[in-house]
């Protein structure tokens, strides 16, 4: 019985390809219409001058060359890169630390876990509202608490030096999802490994670095990659917070905001498309580098 079953698995039946394609056809049609065609269109537009109201006009690599001399482009790249460099490691470390602390037998464990997770459910737009209120220079709770402690808080969302720290702090508020992922990964680590480590005389820190970290490294990799993809395209919160009728706070101007402005406000579809492709290439390169690096750093259990 079994041998027969596996034999029929190896040899696909006649016409099975058509059958398979039929099953996956919704995705094939949908991704063609709503993903691959738009991507191809934007690749073409990126090589044209396309003010939306007139047809696109071939301009070669002009849009890409223009970026190097565009001070606003350079600024949004710098802001977005800085945000990624600060936010991704801090979020990952905080998530791991919280997960490790929560992984013991702690009173009220589920309640604490829920408190840290719930902020990740708050729609970005609502969290922008809440943080605009908390970070308000005169009336915000953050500065009220600071003044009780005798500190004169800054105008968080206005002062150019404080915009980036505010953005990073807000991003840390959403660390709950990653924490849950790490918590689940920690619970999958076999107990015997820790027992063996203890018998070998490893201290708590050594156990963490030699047992815990390697065992949860696949989850760390997944988390860092998805955080990178998310941070590179940060949009809604800075769009609501820093885009004012009298101009955008330059410290709070991010890549996707400028892309959006070029496409839908200034009508520079060509330039916006070039920015989109640069963004895509950056994401692909970063993901590729991380996957390559992970071959040496990530430990997959052989089962």
């Amino acid at each position, binding site marked *: 019985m079994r041998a027969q*079953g596996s034999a029929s*698995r190896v040899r*696909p039946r006649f016409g*099975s*390809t058509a*059958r*398979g394609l*039929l*099953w*996956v056809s*919704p*995705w094939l*049609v949908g991704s063609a*219409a*709503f*993903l691959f*065609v*738009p*991507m191809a*269109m*934007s690749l073409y537009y990126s090589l044209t001058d396309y003010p939306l109201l007139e047809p696109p006009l071939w301009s070669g690599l002009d849009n890409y060359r223009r970026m190097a001399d565009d001070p606003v482009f350079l600024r949004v790249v710098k802001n977005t890169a800085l945000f990624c460099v600060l936010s991704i490691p801090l979020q990952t470390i905080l998530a791991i630390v*919280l997960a490790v*602390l929560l992984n*013991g*037998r*702690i009173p*009220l464990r589920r309640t604490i876990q*829920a408190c*840290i*997770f*719930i*902020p990740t*459910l*708050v*729609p970005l737009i*609502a969290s922008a*509202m*809440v943080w605009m*209120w908390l970070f*308000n220079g005169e*009336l915000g*709770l953050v500065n*009220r608490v600071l003044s009780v402690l005798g500190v004169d808080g800054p105008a968080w969302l206005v002062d150019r030096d404080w915009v980036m720290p505010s953005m990073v702090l807000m991003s840390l508020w959403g660390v709950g*999802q990653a924490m*849950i992922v790490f918590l689940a*990964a920690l619970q*999958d680590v076999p107990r015997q490994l820790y027992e063996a480590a203890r018998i070998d005389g490893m201290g708590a820190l050594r156990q963490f670095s030699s047992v815990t970290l390697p065992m949860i490294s696949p*989850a760390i990799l997944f988390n860092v990659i998805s955080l990178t993809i998310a941070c590179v*395209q940060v*949009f809604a919160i800075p769009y*609501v917070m820093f885009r004012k009728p009298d101009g955008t706070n330059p410290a709070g101007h991010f890549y996707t905001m400028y*892309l959006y402005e070029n*496409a*839908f406000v200034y009508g520079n579809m060509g330039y916006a*498309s070039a920015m*989109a492709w640069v963004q*895509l290439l950056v*994401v*692909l390169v970063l*993901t590729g580098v991380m996957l390559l690096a992970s071959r040496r750093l990530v430990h997959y259990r052989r089962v």
Partner: protein
Amino acid sequence: MREASRISVGRWLTFMLLACVAVAFIAPLVWMVSTSIKPESQAASGAIRLLPDPASGAPSQAAANYSSVWNDRTVKFPLYLRNTLVVALLSVAGMTLSSAIVAFGLSRVRWRGRGVVFALVLTTMMVPFPVIMAPLYLVFKNIDDGMRAAGVLERAPWMQMLGTLKPLWLPAWFGGAFNIFLLRQFFMTIPRELDEAATIDGCSSWRTFWRVILPLSRPALAVVALFHFIYVWNDFVGPLIFLTNRDQFTLALGLQLYQSQAGNTPWNLLMAASTMVVAPLILLFLLAQRTFVQGVASEGLK
């Protein structure tokens, strides 16, 4: 003895630390609700207090604030709630069903090229939405133009894409890469003997899918539906691009409109509006905490 007490001291320190962290994480939401039930003058005063003064006035003040938001003349929250629910319902139904169909084709049907298609699905998960957002708008514009040229829109004006909610829910009916991936991983864990038995009993593969695989996959389908519902509820960029008519706004867009309208929106009312947008999600979480936690964990580990 000493060992045991040291462990428990460590545990208590950890607990105290975590309790402080938990308070810090939940404080912004508590402050949001607290502001939303205060009169404007107290919301803007320097005092740090949770309830309005006098506290007995809280219920009537809350009622006043929330009804003022709900009945706002220019920003029509009841309408935005309806729009959001329409998009969410159509989108969740389409996403769950179509992702399951595609996932079935990628896990329970054997065919050449399956691996290639699956790899393609995984690759598309990396494409950031901003990359396609501008041309996607043009795709829908082209569909409209094409239908107008073919005379379709004259006969069936309801097929119009731009200026309606369709661009927000129609793509969901073609499956989402992430959900396909999630469901495929789940379908793979269902013993193959089950559909072999169904085939021997004369079930077509559609019947096997519908009668055997789907009922067994309820937990995974629930995760997909729940997470997609939250995605739609939270989505800001999609509505921002596709919706131009204020009467079609969703809650996320409405909240931004409420904040940015002429004159400064009082903080107590803005927080009441934010609370209205956040509260259903938190309620949903409290009702389905298990599904949430398992869902997040399984997304991150596979």
